Each structure stands twice: as structure tokens, then as C-alpha cells.
């Protein structure tokens, strides 16, 4: 029996029992003895390994969400719809159940905030009595000093009851979008008692209080550009915080 025969035999029959011819060859061939010894060690070590543990479900959920977010896979549409259409709330939940959508939405909010800021910076800044400032204070259709140029109506007041103070007109849609995201973000970590989630909730409260404070001050002093800058930064921080809460909520759920 030659070395190739030993290899072939072990591949097909395993380690035991070795036939007489193979044992004779091993007695003479150190290379094959080492080979058999290696195989024996591998089998011994493999037998000592713990039973394979299935990863928790959240690993698969997270993996799937990541793959969906990257567009590698897509969630198949339901095969058979129920008799009754789902409520609008379930549609919203379904939309935001994907981390990619949620992150994108928060990103859009940030971009929207930035766009508003840029638009505001480009607009002429006049005194408190100017039409520009007046338009910011009063969210109603307005006409510029040049009567030929019609100004688009400012966003209407929120349909939901305002919290404490209304955001300045240029921030209205940003504030609204963030307010819409807040229940989703807080809901995802609502059941968690961990220190970090408590900290996130506490910081959200602080940002909200600061935003309300700035909004109130801007209502009284609409020409205060410093407060406007702080309010813009606070909206951005809130957007990032909500994004972090959503990401964390997805991971713990």
C-alpha cells in the first residue's frame, strides 16, 4: 500500500479500523503516521467542541434589516392581503420598521433644517418691522414690499395641538417632522430600564426644554439671531438623538 492509497482509504473509510496493509505501511512511513495523527487530533478536538448554539433571533432580524437597508434584499410583499385594509398607523409603522427608512427620514429632517437655514441666510434681514420678519412671526400669506411678487404662503399651523410654543415659521416643518418622529423613537426604548436608555430619554427632555425656551424667546425677540442659531443647532441635535434612539431601539428589540 502506498501513501496515496492510505489517503484514499482514510477519505472513504475513516480512521478505524485500518487494514493490515495500511498498518504495515504506517509502520514504515513517518509522513503517513503524522497524517493519521493529525486527523485523530482533529476528530478528538471536534468531539470536545460544544454543541452549536443558534444565534438569537435579533441577529437575523438585524442582519435582514441591514441587507434591506443596503438594497441587497427586499422584503416580499404580502401574498394575500387581509379583507380589511390596514389602518394608516400600521402603514406608518410599516414604513418606519425599516432602519434604512427611519435613518433616511431623520437624515431628511436634518437636510430640511439645513435648507431652511440656508434659505433664511440668503433672505434679506431687515428690522423687526419689515415684511420679512412679520412673515416669520405671523404664519399667514403675505405680500412683499414689491407688490408684484407674490410670496408663497407660510406653512399652516400644525394640525396637532402645539406642545407649549410654536416654532418660528422657517423651522415649522423641521419641528413638525421631529415631533412626528419622537413617539416612534421613544416608543422603541420605552420598555428598557437600562441606564443608557434612561440617559437618552433625559437628554431628549433637556433638548425639548431648550427648544421650547428658544422658541418662546424668539417669539418675544424675533430679531435675536443668536437664539435662532441655538435653536437651529438644537433641532439638529434632536434629530441626531432621535436617530440614535431609533438605532438603539432596533438593536435591543
Amino acid at each position, binding site marked *: 500500500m*502506498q*501513501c*496515496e492509497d492510505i*489517503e484514499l482509504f482514510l*477519505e472513504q473509510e475513516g480512521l478505524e479500523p485500518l487494514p493490515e496493509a495500511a498498518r504495515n*505501511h504506517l509502520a*514504515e*512511513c*513517518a*509522513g*503517513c503516521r503524522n*497524517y493519521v495523527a*493529525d*486527523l485523530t*487530533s*482533529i476528530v478528538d*478536538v*471536534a468531539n*470536545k*467542541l*460544544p454543541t452549536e*448554539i443558534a*444565534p*438569537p433571533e*435579533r441577529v437575523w432580524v438585524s442582519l435582514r434589516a441591514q441587507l434591506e437597508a443596503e438594497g441587497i434584499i427586499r422584503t416580499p410583499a404580502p401574498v394575500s392581503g387581509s379583507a380589511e385594509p390596514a389602518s394608516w398607523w400600521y402603514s406608518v409603522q410599516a414604513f418606519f420598521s425599516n432602519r434604512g427608512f427611519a435613518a433616511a427620514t431623520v437624515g431628511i429632517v436634518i437636510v430640511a433644517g439645513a435648507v431652511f437655514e440656508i434659505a433664511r441666510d440668503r433672505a434679506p*434681514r431687515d428690522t423687526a418691522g419689515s415684511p420679512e420678519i412679520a412673515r416669520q412671526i405671523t404664519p399667514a400669506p403675505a405680500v412683499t414690499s414689491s407688490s408684484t411678487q407674490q410670496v408663497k404662503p407660510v406653512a399652516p399651523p400644525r394640525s396637532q395641538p402645539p406642545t407649549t410654543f410654536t416654532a418660528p415659521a422657517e423651522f415649522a416643518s423641521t419641528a413638525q417632522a421631529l415631533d412626528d418622529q419622537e413617539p416612534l423613537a421613544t416608543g422603541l426604548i420605552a420598555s428598557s430600564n*437600562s*441606564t*443608557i436608555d434612561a*440617559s*437618552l430619554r*433625559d*437628554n431628549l427632555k*433637556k*433638548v425639548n426644554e*431648550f427648544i421650547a*425656551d*428658544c422658541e418662546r*424667546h424668539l417669539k418675544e*425677540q424675533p*430679531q*435675536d*439671531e*443668536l*437664539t435662532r442659531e*441655538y435653536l437651529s*443647532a*438644537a433641532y439638529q*441635535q434632536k434629530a441626531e*438623538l432621535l436617530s*440614535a434612539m431609533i438605532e*438603539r431601539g432596533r*438593536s*435591543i428589540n
Partner: protein
Amino acid sequence: MCPSMRVTPVRQATRLLLPVFAAGLFFAGVSPARAASQRVEKQFNVTSHPVVVIHNVASGRIEVKSWKNAHQVDIVGTQSSNKIAFDIEQAGDRVDVNANILDASAQPLELEANLQLTVPEETELQLKTETGLIYVEQVNGDMKLESYGGDVHLKEVSGYVIVKTTGGSLVCTQCAGKLDFSSISGNAQLLQPQLNNVNVMTTTGNILFDGAFIRTGLYSMRSGKGLVEVRFSSNDSFDLQAQTSTGFVDNRAADFLKPDNHKVRTYASKVIHGFVGTVGAGLAKVELSSYSGTIRIMRRD
């Protein structure tokens, strides 16, 4: 030796498999119940300027120090239970470390994972953790450090340093280069800095700058509700602008702060309180602001 003996692919694979199985046995643990507190240590060879990326979703401390060995990264991870797993791998000069939670139902005490790194002095860092201290000492390179609740302590680091926290505070001692810090409720302390570009923003935290302003440096420190305190040296040279909406400017160095000699700055709005002044030739530019907090300016010496 058998004359027909040769190293076939099967034999090669067998030789490779043996150490792999042995390593698997070592890291998996013979019995899961036995693994209460575990320690993992790994060394990675790098060519130069490695990038170390850490994402620690567990609680625990990340400590990074440097050594003179420019071609090796040493990582020691300790974990409180086997409900956390370190995933450490190298791709070229990048070393990725992830601490993952394996059991979401684990108790907080079981989810502690500490990492201790020793890296070349010239190393780029990207560290992200949820809680626990991030400590970096004597590392030169760009770094981005993110934490929700953990503090960030930097000592003798240099480069472009970005720190983002939610509630964690920053203590930066003898740091050099450029620093960006943003936080909601975290404080920032910059002690004996050699920074030539500072951008610090916190919504409710406090800011302390205690050190020299480098000539031609740019410094912006803003706090929504907190205290902004600057302690400068009489040898410094800077233009300073301090402004607040509803807060208070506490100028304890009025004798040294001359009215701005460039005559170009005026406040756009009368509702903002503050002043503009110059120390020395006004070479550096310092902007301090607070929405409703106090801005305190004082001399160190």
C-alpha cells in the same frame, strides 16, 4: 520516509485545520457555563499609521495608549460573561474590534466589556461606545470618538479630534491640533491645550478653557444653558467676542481686554448682550457665546 510521500492538498488542509480547531476550542470555551470572566489578547502586525475601529455596544471602558513599537497593535479584551463576544479582525493596516451582545436578556452586570489597546504613536482611531469611559493617551492621529453616556478623557493627543457625546463629558489635557466637540448635556474641559482650532458646542453642559490661545488659532465655544469659562494668560494675543441672549457676561479681566482695535465688529442686534475686546495684538480669534448661561473671562496669571 516513504518515497512516494508528498504533501497533497488534503494533507495541507488537514494541517491547517488542526490549529483552527484548536483555536476554536479555545475561544468557544469547552463549557459555556464555565466562562464567567474571560480575557482575550491579540497582537496584529501593521506597516504604519494603522487605523483602529472599535464599536462597543456593551458597557465598559476603552483605554488606548501608545508604545514605541510602530508596527504592532496589541488588544486585550475582558468581558464579564459569555453573553458578550469580541469580534476582532484585521484588514491590512485596519483593525476592527466589535463587542457584540449575544443574549439580549442578559443583566447589565453581565454586559461589561473592557478593552485595553496599545498602539503605535501614529494611529488613527474611530471609537464608538454606549457607556463607559473612553481614555486615550499619547496618540497622534485623527480620531473620532463617540459615546452616548460615557466620558471621554484625552491626554497628550494630537491630530484632528472629533468627539460626540449625548451626556458624556470631555476632559482634554495637553491636546494639540484641531478639536470638534458636540454634546447635549456633557461638559468640556480643555486644560493646557495646544489646540489651534477649537469648536465646542454643548446644549446644557459647561465649558472650561484653561490655557494658551495659539496665535492665528480659531476658537469657538458655545453653550446653550451652561457656563463658558475662559482662563487666559497675559502673554496671549487674541481678539475676543462674547455674546449671550439672556445670559450674563462676567468679565473679570477688564483691565486686560482692550476695546476691539479693528473697529469692524458691531452687533447686528441690540438684543444680544456682550462685548468685543482684544488682548495683545489680537492674533487669535476667540468666539464665546451662551444662550442663557454665563460667560466668564478671567486671567490665569
